[in-house]
């Protein structure tokens, strides 16, 4: 716990976007999270590290409204929030990008960006209809921000590569102006060149002043992109480090217990 306090007192000027304070969660008799805390600031990439079952996924599900946490509190811009659904978290600017991408493969990039929130227009002046032009234009602009230029805006996303699809998922978060982007194993299913691309995407999110929570098994990726590494062990905080102050050996020791 002392590590947490130390990190919070570190040389960061802005107030945190997200502050997780002592939240717990249990499933039946299993304590999945026990008084877990950490902060995320604007323009900061926080990596969550930990072995399987350490509670990384549980904590992001609590933040993104999939689970309701017990005890403790989650503060967004200093205000306490209790999301009862992922939709509510999204409405507050928290976008979660899941491991399996959560894209509808048969729909275009624009349709995926707008999935569930499609813009409407009127055909012949009276008939409400989905505004596909607007979706395509937004897709083009957003993917351009990510330096990903597509010629076929009407093609289904199944036509694109893994890294490009990851970019679509990130593009969706950017388009909806997410202030906090949570990424669960974004590089796990990708080849090496594609992993580089995703790392670059995370850096561009950071440069745009968004907060990023990044879960990965790949310590190399973590060291490359994270500003802070929060380590979990068996549902508890096991410490926090800045990449330039630590080594992967130390992080692994913290993950498995000394």
């Amino acid at each position: 716990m002392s590590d947490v306090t130390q990190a919070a007192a570190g040389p960061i000027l802005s107030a945190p976007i997200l502050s997780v304070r002592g939240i717990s969660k249990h499933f039946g008799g299993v304590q999945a999270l026990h008084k877990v805390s950490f902060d995320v600031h604007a323009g900061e990439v926080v990596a969550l590290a930990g072995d399987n079952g350490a509670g990384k996924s549980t904590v992001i599900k609590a933040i993104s409204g999939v689970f309701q946490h017990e005890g403790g509190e989650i503060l967004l811009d200093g205000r306490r929030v209790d999301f009862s659904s992922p939709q509510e978290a999204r409405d507050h600017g928290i976008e979660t990008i899941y491991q399996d991408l959560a894209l509808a493969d048969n729909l275009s990039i624009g349709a995926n960006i707008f999935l569930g929130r499609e813009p409407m227009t009127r055909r012949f002046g009276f008939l409400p209809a989905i505004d596909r032009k607007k979706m395509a234009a937004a897709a083009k602009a957003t993917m351009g921000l990510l330096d990903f230029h597509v010629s076929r805006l009407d093609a289904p996303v199944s036509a694109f590569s893994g890294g490009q699809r990851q970019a679509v998922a990130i593009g969706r978060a950017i388009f909806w102006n997410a202030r906090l982007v949570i990424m669960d194993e974004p590089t796990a299913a990708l080849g090496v060149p594609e992993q580089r691309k995703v790392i670059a995407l995370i850096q561009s999110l950071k440069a745009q002043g968004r907060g990023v929570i990044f879960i990965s098994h790949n310590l190399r990726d973590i060291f490359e992109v994270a500003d802070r590494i929060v380590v979990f062990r068996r549902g508890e905080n096991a410490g926090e480090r800045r990449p330039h102050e630590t080594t992967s050996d130390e992080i692994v020791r913290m993950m498995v217990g000394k």
Partner: protein
Amino acid sequence: MRAWLFLVFLIVFFEIWARVAYGSSFILNVYNLQSISVFATAPLLLALGQTFVIISAGIDLSLGFIMGFASVIAAHTANYAAAQLGLPPFAAMIVAIATGTALTIIPGLVNGALIAHLRVPPFIGTLGMYGVARGAAYLFAGGMTVAISNPWYSAIGNNRVLGVPVVVILTAIACLIMHYLLSQTRFGQHTYAMGASQAAARRAGIRIKRLTMKIYLLSAVMAGVAGAFYTGRFSAGAAQAGEPLLLDSIAAVVIGGASLFGGSGTIWGTVAGALVIAVIQYGLVFIDVEPFWQFIAVGTVIIISVLVDQTQRRFTGGRQVE
């Protein structure tokens, strides 16, 4: 588009046959066109709703008997409205069509609730409803066909406007509405998304349960419309009205290019699929082939469609869903 090519191929085939064997035209024959289009209406109406269901990665096996149920209810209502309520024929017809169609909301909602809320697989849930609707339809019909004598209602089923059968006009309107729903509305867009990945749709904030309810409700109501039209066409309600049409409806959707794994399909594809089946069935009778060959021909077309679909997927690198 594939189904339209199939259709053109079939028409050319029958056209050549007709010219060589009979020295007459197959397709430039008003009577043939009227017959084929009327023939296609009932399976097509079922297939329109089935298209939504299949795109959502479901299946509705209960449509045939929901159609029969609606047909019987519409016939009884037409008789009751005229005899007991003393309504004039036109009003009795309207009440009959409305009642027959409206009561299909019940099996539609039950299907939807079973699948969405009780997590029964669509195949099983609608198979159960197949039995329930079948029994209910026969019970209401008393095991017989329910004859009506309503000139207006029979006219809807059999008359033509400028040579075009009224049921064909009404079915064409239904196609336009369904095409609009599927391709231009959030409902349609979310149906595609759900069929590709229910998890993705849910995470995007789409309310899967409500959407599932709507989809099965729509397919049941379309079967209700088909049943109500049937009663007009044959001047009688019959529990078995849709019995042979269920598989035709699924076949039309599949020939039309939809994948049974969900996520793809269009209304115009389904229209072409239904026309392919109707042309095969009518065409084989036209060239005097024993009627049993129809089954073999339609079955072969279904298999070819699925094979072409799979080959296409392999070449476009589309996702293979197990």
